[in-house]
């Protein structure tokens, strides 16, 4: 700086490290971090935790959370992607021990050829085990298998105050329950023991059935839930109360000897211009999607990846929504309040801002695995909204009213904007969670919904 003497320059604190921008999957909000730690070994974590200030850290996996629950604006992240070792596997029981940065994709690559499958999988394989636990993710088999956290038998948790804490059903069971769905705020998971399940092969006996109303969906879902391990529906959110969509259901198929050759899909190289995505193009896409699936309805044996991970076939599909990014809205509404659900769909259709891929699923009644788990009995819907400023946020606020009045909840992993009041209504026990938090952990999401510093 001109005019500044060397002496004053020396007194300045050491230059802050370059700010690093890390985006979540929705590419909104766009915030900078002070530093991103990239430990490659578990033995480096105690030092990182020890030297950090209070409330300054947050573990980060593959950044598939949509909003700000995996971000820590102006503070630090611990990027766990290099902590990706498989530490043990018992092939008589299917018990897997791995580090927190191992991805579900990696687990499938290594263990599916041996006849083992994930106990629960979300709609993308590119999440880490740590992220799957921290968000207590669910999948198409929620009605029979519960959430991912229900299959975590034991974890080793690095804490800034207590060192490595072992948590299982006997030792520190409360800390285990707090960490499942605990949004990374209870510490850094060193390793986790996950119960894999046996399957005959990589194929799914799948069936798709078009439906034209919400009650038709519910009938299909109730009828299928005890015969099919996996159920989910795609919903055309431009259709409003008439709720047309495609119901997908499936079971693991018996082995039929054929090998599966994985294909590497295309990749969206850059953010699409925003005018390409408008109510006409999206409506046309939805109609085409409905027509195509109606035409090829019925049963078929399909590869597991096209059944579970259709979106993973286009890498970086989130760039579809342009530079401003997008918001995802995922709520659950009790089934007793089906009227509220219809009103929600009505408002989305009316706004004309809905997008592709409304996903509809009836949750089962399994008790929650974590203190802040999102899934609970009811109907859940997830859909994307391209971020177009104030009007997008307004629409989502009006949806919030319905969710809150109906006794529903919003999913933190998908959220970048819910109000503290709605968080409180969704997770009334969040104050009981606070004592389990690691004093050095915080997140943008947590500060936003609780007012914590």
């Amino acid at each position: 700086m001109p005019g500044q003497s060397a002496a004053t320059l020396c007194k300045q604190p050491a230059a802050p490290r370059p700010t690093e921008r890390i985006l979540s999957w929705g590419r909104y909000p766009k915030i900078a971090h002070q530093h991103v730690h990239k430990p490659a070994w578990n033995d480096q974590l105690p030092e990182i935790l020890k030297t950090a200030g209070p409330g300054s850290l947050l573990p980060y996996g593959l950044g598939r959370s949509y909003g700000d629950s995996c971000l820590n604006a102006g503070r630090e992240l611990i990027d766990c992607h290099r902590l990706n070792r498989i530490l043990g596997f018992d092939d008589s029981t299917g018990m897997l021990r791995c580090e927190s940065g191992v991805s579900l994709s990696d687990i499938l690559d290594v263990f599916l050829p041996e006849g083992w499958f994930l106990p629960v999988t979300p709609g993308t394989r590119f999440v880490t085990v740590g992220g799957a636990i921290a968000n207590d993710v669910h999948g198409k088999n929620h009605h029979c298998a519960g959430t991912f956290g229900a299959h975590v038998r034991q974890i080793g948790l690095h804490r800034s105050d207590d060192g490595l804490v072992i948590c299982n059903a006997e030792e520190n069971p409360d800390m285990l329950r707090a960490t499942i769905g605990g949004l990374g705020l209870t510490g850094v998971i060193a390793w986790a023991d996950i119960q894999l399940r046996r399957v005959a092969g990589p194929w799914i006996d799948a069936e798709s059935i078009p439906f034209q109303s919400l009650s038709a969906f519910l009938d299909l879902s109730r009828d299928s839930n005890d015969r099919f391990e996996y159920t989910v529906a795609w919903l055309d959110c431009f259709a409003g109360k008439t709720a047309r969509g495609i119901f997908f259901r499936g079971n693991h198929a018996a082995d039929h000897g054929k090998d599966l050759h994985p294909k590497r899909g295309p990749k969206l190289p850059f953010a699409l211009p925003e005018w390409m995505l408008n109510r006409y193009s999206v409506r046309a896409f939805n109609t085409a999607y409905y027509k195509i699936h109606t035409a090829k309805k019925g049963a078929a044996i399909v590869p597991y990846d096209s059944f579970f991970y259709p979106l993973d076939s286009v890498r970086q599909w989130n760039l579809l929504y342009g530079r401003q990014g997008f918001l995802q809205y995922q709520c659950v509404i009790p089934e007793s309040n089906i009227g509220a659900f219809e009103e929600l769909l009505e408002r989305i259709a009316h706004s004309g801002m809905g997008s592709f891929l409304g996903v509809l699923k009836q949750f089962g009644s399994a008790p929650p695995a974590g203190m802040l788990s999102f899934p609970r009995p009811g109907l859940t819907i997830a859909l994307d909204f391209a971020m177009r400023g104030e009007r997008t946020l307004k629409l989502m606020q009006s949806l919030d009213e319905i969710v809150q009045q109906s006794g529903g909840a919003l999913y933190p992993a998908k959220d970048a904007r819910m109000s503290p009041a709605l968080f409180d209504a969704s997770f009334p026990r969040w104050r009981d969670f606070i004592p389990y938090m690691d004093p050095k952990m915080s997140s943008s999401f947590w500060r936003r919904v609780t007012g914590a510093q």
Partner: protein
Amino acid sequence: MMTITAHPKTARPSHTPVTAMKKIVILGATSGIALEVQRQLARRGCELLLVARSPQRLAETQADLAIRGAQQVSTYSADLASIEQHASIFDFAQRTFPGFDTVLLAYGSMHNQKDSETSVDILMEELQVNFVSAAALLTLFAADLERRRTGCLAVITSVAGDRGRRSNYVYGSAKGALSLFLQGLRSRLHPVGVRVITIKPGPVQTPMTDHLPNSARFADPERVARDIVHALERRSPDVLYTPKIWRYVMKAVQEIPETIFKRFSF
């Protein structure tokens, strides 16, 4: 409760190795690039001997590779930079891992250049780790392969060794010296059919380079590892640039006259 079992997996159908790469010694097995190379070798069902400093990290890596399909994984904990320990490393390899066909040298260190300009200790350490110790260790293994008239020595140097730059010439000169050493070694071992591969990666996203500016734009270590494994399996090239573009970039950089190059600050 936990047991580690190795699954004897057969090689993938897409892969047709030309050379008999089966038993591989990895010197610096916990380095960022080595970790990725080892995973790909494990998937091919290779046998591995891992040498690195930390027993804890070696044990974690060993478990991971055994589960991912490596036929056998053994480890030896030693400080590769210390020449006094080289004899015991070589002895261990010969005794417990006889008939190894490939040696991959993958360790290195990169201090902040500024530190080695002011501290001779750091300068000497940088040269010791990246060149002196590597040359010493390679001499032991080269003699063995030469006697057996078989095998392959693959060594990770760097594009930084192709030209001395203001911001990185200490690391660069050590790696450059290593590349020269390998040129001679290759020529010496060529008549007996031992291959020497000089691997020159561009900047790669590993713990060694995290402190450099723009490290997020560096090459993906998995991709670099793919190139390395591919080179190990084929009969060519002698010098591997990875990602490939660096072969042309460095050719251009080497053509710049010194009178102009000395003014560049990178």
